[in-house]
């Protein structure tokens, strides 16, 4: 078990966005978090990556309590993430964007830059090599000198993943990686994720494209109104009564 949450809860004033969620992610698997809009999936991601502090509950990573750590500290421990909107620096090249991903593994300070120390050269070379490696892995090497603004939506998504890979993560949280991408490209993206798992990286993703999720995920958690309503293999979840009710409407409230 690489990551686990216990009674994780986040309240915004009156609204409970995430409600007592107990959840575990196994190492080397693909886990998907699904649920209708407003179910609390993104809030759940933000709690795990540290952008929001939980109201109660805790998060354990490799047996260590990380509930109070800052986002950058979690990234340094090996928790990577991407955003729904990629947020890349559009006016810089793909390589420049991805190179900065290795910054957390460097010890560079202002003095290194001012005096062009040996460490600066060494660590800049290491960052460039790491970026090359991540770009080769994601199939973006031919595009590495292009400006991000010249890329297609799918290439931008892959660049964002390459950036996350450059941080040398153990687990990566992908927030709707296939949003706004055509079916054929979605297929390629799924392949990339399988490749990442083969390399030993654990993946957790939020996704609305059911077909992709059902084919890809080892385990699925379903959130609705902040509560975990189901958890299991794609087949189990597919036939879960409450899940069907949550997705097809009616049910509880009607």
């Amino acid at each position, binding site marked *: 078990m690489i990551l686990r949450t216990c009674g994780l809860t986040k309240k915004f004033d009156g609204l409970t966005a995430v409600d007592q969620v107990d959840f575990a992610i196994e190492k080397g698997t693909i886990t998907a978090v699904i649920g209708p809009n407003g179910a609390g999936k993104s809030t759940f991601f933000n709690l795990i*990556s540290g*952008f929001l502090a939980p109201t109660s509950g805790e998060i354990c990573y490799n047996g260590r309590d990380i509930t109070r750590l*800052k*986002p*950058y500290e979690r*990234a*340094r421990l090996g928790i*990577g*993430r991407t*955003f729904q909107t990629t*947020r*890349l*620096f559009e006016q*810089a090249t793909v390589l*420049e964007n991805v*190179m*900065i*991903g290795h*910054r*957390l593994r*460097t010890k*560079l*300070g*202002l003095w*290194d*830059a*001012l005096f*062009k120390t040996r460490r*600066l050269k060494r*660590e*800049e070379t290491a*960052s460039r090599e790491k970026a090359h490696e991540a770009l080769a892995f994601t199939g973006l090497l031919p595009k590495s000198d292009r400006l991000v603004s010249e890329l297609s939506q799918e290439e931008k998504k892959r660049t964002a993943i390459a*950036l*996350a890979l*450059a*941080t040398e993560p153990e687990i990566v949280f992908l927030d709707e990686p296939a949003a706004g991408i055509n079916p054929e490209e979605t297929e390629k993206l799924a392949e990339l994720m399988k490749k990442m798992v083969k390399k030993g990286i654990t993946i957790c993703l939020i996704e609305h494209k059911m077909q992709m999720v059902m084919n890809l995920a080892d385990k699925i958690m379903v959130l609705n109104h902040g509560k975990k309503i189901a958890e299991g293999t794609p087949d189990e979840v597919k036939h879960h009564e409450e899940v069907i009710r949550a997705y097809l409407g009616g049910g509880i409230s009607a």
Partner: protein
Amino acid sequence: MSALLNGRIWSLILLLAAVIFPFLTENQYYLHILSMAFIWAIAVYGLNLISGYTGYLSLAHAGFFAVGAYSAGLLMVKTGLNFWLALAAAILITAVAGFLIGLVSLRTKEHFFAIYTLCVGYIIYLIIYKWEELTEGVRGLIGIPHPAPLGPFSFETPRSQYYLLLFFLVLVIWMMKRIVHSLVGSTYTAIRNSEELAEAIGINVMKQKLVSFVVSTVLAGLAGALYASFVRFIGPDISYVSITFDMLTYLIVGGIGTLAGPLVGTILIVALTQSLQFLEDFRMLIFGPLLIALIIFYPRGIAGGVSSWLHNRRKETVFAAGMERTVNVKGESQ
């Protein structure tokens, strides 16, 4: 590579021009104006680091300029400290002030940060204005000595002072170039681009912002200390908000977030201001529309406009060369 070489050649030509300039003109007035422009440019380079590269619009910059100027001025006038020691002390004092203010102000973002620092700048102004026992208030601080001689160099004449200021400006530009073109500089740009993404890839955003802010205030303080001993009189008005906006104008006209921007903008506007002196306050009728037009058509100022024009032209040549090659290959295969 050839572009880099060109860039280097251009900087050398510019530097050479700056070095021989005092021998080209007998007019002390031009020398004075250019020396002043050098001082402002140093401060604007500081502003550029935090506002241009790191994305935090600081409006306290005239305040930090004044902290540097008054620290150096007071130490020299009231305790008779040597200029060089006073300069070092002024830099240290501004750095500490920048650190403390940055620690608080950098918790705010975007326009809140701008408003917060605007207030900080105004508070610095009020302190200088009201604390007469220390700063002499509105009377100002008079009789600040020239820079003390350093070994064989003395700085009594306008020409020698010009070279001293040029030295500091070149030093600052060289420092900025090193920072901006390194992974340390791209860390700042990453923060400007998206603080959340930067945080998510493991960058200690608060620490990086603080370093950038302190460096930017140190440059403002350095410029202030040089100003004090160059003009030899300082009053509270050097910390006034309008000075911050002058610096911001230089930066925006020259090109915010570019390496050449602060230099280009400062020299251009300072020179323009001087040559339009006869229009008095009606100068603003020229500056206003100029600024608006520039922001609409060249949001990254003159330096940014030129560099994207060069970029496009290079792309076109590459494209044309590619086309030619395709045509040739086709011709050969026939």
